[in-house]
């Protein structure tokens, strides 16, 4: 069994919870065990670095210190820390690298960590991204051997995003601009991988929040290119990319008066489907640009997303005709 330390990152608890669900669903078949770093904190994304350097790197490195301690406390402790989010991966990897490249940074960061009773020696851990571990440790042959429902007939645009293959100080990827890891993995699942030259173009990151026009253009390019090349959907390795392409596609369409409908799923969700899991176990259905039609190409039926559960505060109130509630009886009402 392959064992790793997991740094989930904030998105996997919220906007990218589908990533976490699908990740958990594929670990069993692949015989991989992830141990979450206890009490991990936010990596600061791209925000903290732009405000104050030493606090930003101390925030990131607290996680490395906790992970190193956790790893040392175990007999068979793994030295590899895995991040499924590209921004988290980059921050952790960059902190580890820069503290080696510039030792004075490591000294200051450790001075800060000391105030919390922690320390971290740069280079102690290997920081890696989820897809790196799946492709290079688990291997495409193992992945291929677990496929029970090949994704034949599904045309997928492989979207690696920018922060994963770059700057790549640890030399982990096949190329900085056209890496093939995601393509290879999707092909192993049986999917038809389209040629997608924008695979490492930026989705706009936080610009959807602070400079929407800039971000909309970046999103448009990615979605339009995938659409023109006949993709049914895009596959991503990053929660930020998923959020921007999925949640802001509507606003982007409105801004450019376009009508694109390009669903984007996490590569782990596609792995889960190929391993025979049901969409409901993989968080499929919570995307805002529905993947229903795309997945119909596989004969997979996506459950209609749950309707919002309206919480009724009081039973008394103005008498309303029952049929407005669609005649459904809710649990609490039935008890009363």
């Amino acid at each position, binding site marked *: 069994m392959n064992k790793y330390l997991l740094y989930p990152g*904030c998105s996997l*608890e*919220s*906007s990218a*919870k*589908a990533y976490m669900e699908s990740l958990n669903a594929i670990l069993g078949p692949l015989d991989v065990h992830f141990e979450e770093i206890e*009490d*991990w*904190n*936010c990596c*600061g*994304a*791209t*925000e*903290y*670095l*732009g*405000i*104050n*350097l*030493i*606090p930003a*790197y*101390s925030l990131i490195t*607290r996680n490395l210190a906790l992970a190193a301690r956790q790893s040392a406390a175990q007999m068979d402790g793994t030295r590899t820390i895995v991040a499924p989010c590209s921004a988290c991966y980059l921050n952790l990897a*960059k902190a580890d690298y*820069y503290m080696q*490249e*510039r030792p*004075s*940074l490591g000294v200051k960061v450790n001075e*800060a960590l000391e*105030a*919390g*009773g*922690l320390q971290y020696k740069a280079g102690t851990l290997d920081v890696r991204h989820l897809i790196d571990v799946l492709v290079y440790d688990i291997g495409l042959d193992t992945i291929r051997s677990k496929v029970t429902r090949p994704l034949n007939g599904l045309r997928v645009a492989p979207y690696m995003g*920018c*922060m994963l293959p*770059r*700057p*790549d100080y640890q030399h982990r990827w096949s190329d*900085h*601009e056209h890496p093939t890891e995601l393509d290879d993995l999707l092909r192993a699942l049986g999917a038809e991988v389209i040629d997608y030259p924008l695979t490492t*173009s*930026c989705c706009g*990151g*936080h*610009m959807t*929040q*602070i*400079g*929407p026009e*800039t971000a909309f253009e*970046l999103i448009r390019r990615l979605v339009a290119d995938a659409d023109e090349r006949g993709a049914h959907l895009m596959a991503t390795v990053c929660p930020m990319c998923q959020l921007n392409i999925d*949640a802001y596609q*509507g*606003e982007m369409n*409105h801004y450019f008066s376009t009508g694109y409908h390009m669903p984007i799923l996490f590569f782990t969700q596609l792995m889960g489907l190929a391993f025979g899991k049901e969409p409901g176990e993989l968080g499929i259905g919570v995307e*805002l640009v529905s993947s229903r039609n795309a997945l119909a190409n596989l004969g997979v039926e996506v459950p209609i997303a749950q*309707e919002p559960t309206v919480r009724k505060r009081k039973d008394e109130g103005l008498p309303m005709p029952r049929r407005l509630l669609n005649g459904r009886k809710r649990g609490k009402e039935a008890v009363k």
Partner: protein
Amino acid sequence: MPHMTDERVRAGLAHEEDLSLLHEVSMKTAGVSHLEMCIQCGTCGGSCPVAMDMDHTPRMLFAMLRAGMREEVLRSNTPWICVSCYHCVVRCPQEVHIADVMYTLKGMAIKAKLYQDSTAPHFSQTFVGMVETYGRGFELGLASRHYLRYFPLRLPGMMPMGFGMITKGRMPIRPRKIKHMDQLKAILKRAKQLELTS
């Protein structure tokens, strides 16, 4: 300070430029920035997916740093438009840590209160405020605080998205807090007193 340069030119000292700003930025940047090594080739600007929205391309900005144009540099929107995609970084023949230099310039601009035209500093500071309070990100708090202040007119158009995110359980109403918040606070408090000086 152009007049100083004139004097220097007259005194035959033109080759001794004032590189203090360049060195300051380089010193404050994580890792070894290689900023002094920039050869003004322009590969960065040519590789940038958002250069069209920038006041100055990165190449131009680095020339301004070398020329000591502190105020112009810190007023530029360039670091705030940068999306940290690292295209320029992997293509730079001199291996300048361009994206990290942009982070340094953002921090300097906030401190000098020079860049005021964008909502970006507020967004970053609100984000950091959430992290310093809870230890984890809190999207709903961040988005609502930021949009109400800066994009109230964008809100109606965003309602379907926000509603979708919340009802599909992708935007928790309450923040998650880490257990040892006191430890994180102590670390950050100490860290704020420290600066990279060598």
